[in-house]
């Protein structure tokens, strides 16, 4: 029965091996918490712009979301990198797919980080003192 990838002996691959396991444990807590709050206790019927604005009024939830974004995205990108390693062998295609992965990976991580850090609730909501 297949289990996890064999532990690499050193260098970046060993770091990546540990990163997947450590980020995985943290993500179980963060993501299951996120799903319970956003998809079970609240549902997509309640969630709208005002909901997110109120939620991000709290530095706690911004930090929570930022840590979750970085860990989940890097965990997923590294997973996809291993899938590419397994199936894409021709040198040219490796360059193309890995470059595309790095570019898309960087752009989306930057977008997500930017909105979490720079989002400002509109003045009308701040003035109304909504939660």
């Amino acid at each position, binding site marked *: 029965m297949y289990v996890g990838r064999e532990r690499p002996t050193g260098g970046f691959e060993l770091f990546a091996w540990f990163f997947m396991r450590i980020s995985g444990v943290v993500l179980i807590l963060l993501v299951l918490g996120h799903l319970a709050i956003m*998809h079970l206790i609240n549902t997509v019927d309640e969630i709208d712009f005002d909901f997110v604005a109120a939620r991000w009024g709290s530095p706690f939830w911004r930090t929570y979301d930022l840590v979750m974004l970085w860990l989940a995205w890097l965990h997923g990108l590294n997973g996809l990198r291993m899938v590419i390693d397994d199936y894409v062998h021709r040198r040219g295609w490796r360059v193309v797919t890995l470059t595309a992965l790095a570019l898309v990976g960087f752009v989306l991580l930057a977008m997500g980080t930017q909105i979490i850090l720079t989002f400002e609730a509109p003045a009308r909501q701040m003035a109304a003192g909504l939660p």
Partner: protein
Amino acid sequence: MWSWILHRVTGLGILLFLAIHIVDIYLLGWPDVFNRLLFLYRHPVFRVAEVFLVAAVLYHALNGIRILLVDFWVEGTRLHRQIFWAQVVIFLLIWIPTSLLMLSPVVFGR
């Protein structure tokens, strides 16, 4: 073999959703556009897909724990079959009630 294939497929599925999710959250910069596009996530098709997203995350999480047990716990390799069945039972115990709770507003109205 199947647990490995499922780990891959669920991982890739979650990554695809996360990419879409980053883009939709980025649209918070345009509140009206954001609110107008929410009909997509409220559509019954997505509400069902949402339940399968939870299944993918739950499977990936539990199977990840199994990988950790085998990697770091001496007894993990010997007990891997029992751990696999424990994983199946825990998955069903969490996923079935969660799905019912998530789908009840869709099926029965609010």
